[in-house]
């Protein structure tokens, strides 16, 4: 009996997806050329590795870690020390392999810390990682020999003449190095999900007890996965060290760990590609979103509330749901609803945004006059008109949104029913 026949048609699709991914990585800096864009792209690559490695724990192993930055961060520190050793000539390895040093460091620390953390799952695991994270962060300021104190440790990635003009001076060269690492790491982590250990990790997540009755040691499965996740986390840290050429204590901080958790979840922990989306959003949120508005933290918080409530599977699950609808050929009838939803949602956002921005303006900026522009519309933060206008827009938007949402939900439900019937029918065949 040949069993993997059903992978055949998918394999073509898979080749396509991976080639597209590679292509995307290759052309991105040709499209977005500014200095900021290149470093943002680099950071996205780095974040993608970090979030995927985090999701090995969260999504695939059911381990909620509050201290993943420990492994990315320590990887970064080790990598920058390695880089400095390379610069000093005491470590004869090419600069391009420095991230691997970070990976090794992540691995070693995961071996050390993972031994105690992965003995338990659930809340106990979460809390140990929280405690370890705090400890490592506190230590980072107390032991300047290794962590470089407040200023951190800096290095210089340009060592010697380089090879064929590649000396990693120009950010674009570093970007391509990161892109290569990103591609390989993503591929490796995807491959991992298809291996016996990867599958058993899912089993451990679902039912650690039962795993022991099919011959596996649940603890050991968790531990091994933790080590592998630590390795990739370290690589991501090492790439970060190369990109910034400086590593400071913030890389092991709780803020980082929290961000990995939040954005991995936002992207979608249940699908492999979810964390990739999450990572991209993370970089956008921290680098660009915060430049657009002072109220970015507020928006971020609200986005999380809404996502957790209405799309607990993250963005990836939304996409997959629509793909499923598309597979049954019924996505097309939804676009009107989507359009309506988007438009009304934008109206709500405009109303709410105008009010939020006015409050912020009043608070931070009032001396510059009470006028401000919000998406091109002049507003007067002290004028009743603007406030009434914004409130009106908000309320109308809310009303319309709710209306369209209901219509959409009915339609959506009907389609789901249809799909369910179809699957039942197919099963019965």
């Amino acid at each position, binding site marked *: 009996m040949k069993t*993997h026949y059903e992978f055949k048609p998918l394999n073509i699709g898979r080749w396509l997806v991976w080639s597209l991914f590679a292509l995307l990585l290759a052309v991105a800096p040709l499209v977005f050329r500014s200095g900021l864009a290149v470093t943002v792209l680099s950071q996205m690559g780095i974040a993608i590795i970090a979030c995927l490695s985090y999701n090995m724990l969260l999504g695939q192993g059911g381990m909620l870690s509050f201290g993943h930055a420990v492994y990315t961060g320590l990887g970064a520190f080790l990598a920058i020390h390695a880089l400095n050793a390379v610069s000093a000539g005491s470590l004869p390895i090419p600069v391009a392999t420095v991230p691997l040093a970070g990976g090794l460091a992540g691995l070693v620390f995961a071996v050390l810390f993972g031994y105690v953390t992965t003995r338990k799952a659930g809340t106990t695991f979460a809390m140990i990682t929280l405690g370890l994270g705090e400890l490592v962060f506190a230590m980072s300021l107390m032991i300047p020999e290794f962590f470089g104190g407040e200023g951190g440790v800096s290095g210089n990635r340009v060592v010697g003449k380089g090879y064929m003009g590649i000396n990693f001076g120009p950010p674009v060269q570093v970007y391509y190095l990161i892109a290569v690492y990103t591609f390989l790491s993503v591929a490796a982590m995807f491959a991992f999900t298809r291996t*016996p250990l990867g599958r058993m990790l*899912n*089993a451990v997540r*679902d039912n650690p007890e039962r795993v*022991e009755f*099919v011959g*596996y040691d649940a603890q050991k499965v968790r531990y091994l996965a933790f080590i592998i996740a630590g390795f990739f986390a370290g690589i991501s840290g090492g790439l970060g060290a190369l990109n910034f050429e400086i590593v400071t204590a913030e890389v092991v901080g709780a803020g980082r760990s929290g961000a990995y958790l939040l954005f991995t979840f936002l992207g979608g922990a249940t699908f492999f590609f979810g964390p990739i989306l999450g990572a991209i959003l993370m970089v956008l949120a921290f680098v660009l979103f915060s430049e657009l508005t002072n109220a970015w933290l507020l928006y971020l918080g609200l986005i999380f509330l809404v996502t957790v409530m209405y799309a607990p599977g993250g963005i990836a699950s939304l996409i997959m749901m629509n793909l499923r609808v598309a597979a049954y050929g019924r996505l097309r009838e939804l676009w009107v609803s989507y359009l309506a939803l988007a438009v009304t949602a934008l109206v709500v956002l405009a109303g709410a945004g105008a009010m939020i921005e006015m409050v912020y303006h009043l608070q931070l900026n009032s001396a510059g006059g009470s006028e401000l522009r919000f998406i091109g519309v002049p507003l007067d933060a002290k004028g009743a008109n603007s406030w009434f206008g914004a409130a009106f827009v908000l309320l109308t938007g809310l009303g319309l949104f709710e209306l369209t949402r209901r219509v959409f939900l009915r339609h959506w439900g009907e389609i789901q029913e249809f799909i369910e019937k179809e699957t039942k029918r197919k*099963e019965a065949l």
Partner: protein
Amino acid sequence: MTDTATGPFALELRDLRKSFGKTEIIRGANLGVRPGERVAVIGPNGAGKSTLFNLISGRFTPSGGQVLLNGQRIDGKRPFEINRLGLSRSFQITNIFPKLSVFENLRCGVLWSLGYRYTFLKFLADLDDANDRAEELMHMIRLDRKRDTLAVNLTYAEQRALEIGVTIGGGAGVILLDEPTAGMSRSETRRFIELIKEVTVGKTLLTVEHDMGVVFGLADKIAVVVYGEVIAFDTPEKVRANQRVQEAYLGSHVADAQAGGH
């Protein structure tokens, strides 16, 4: 205890004991099962049948006594160690991997025994033996059509079947089934018993059952557990005739009616 067959025991309990806090639940149980025997374990509710299974399979550590599998002591070992030595069990309350598909569930059950252990250097898709074995199991438990359905979405009976599939997947020689037919209707039960018989050919089987029909249909021998002791271990006919068993367990006419009904 009367030993009809001779030779080494596949599974042997020697004065096995287990206490929870102050209460002793298993009070010196003795039992010897020969290879290939099908044994039904019966007894009143709370007698300690499931506890006995938990002790044998390593879920609990015994407070005293010994458990031997093919002559080797396994008491005090962890569940996965015992499993690797060739003993596998199912659960009274369905216990599978809810977010994995039927096929994945079964494949998880076979991986270790085929020697793949913790490897992450091979693709699952390339493990022909594991895939074939899982397909075969899936066919045996008649879930081919639900191959890619997540286990949570199966009906109760299907989940029970899957539970059995995962249990026998590893190819263990000794199988413990805890109330495999619980919650099934008569007809389903009948089908299911056939299934169990079919998939456990040549294996040593211990199963807990309350349904006398099943018990008498399936078992070569019956072990009666009462108050943490094995008070009788014999052929079905002799056990049914046993006065103590009558008193402690079977009650009067219901048992007869049930047993006779098949």
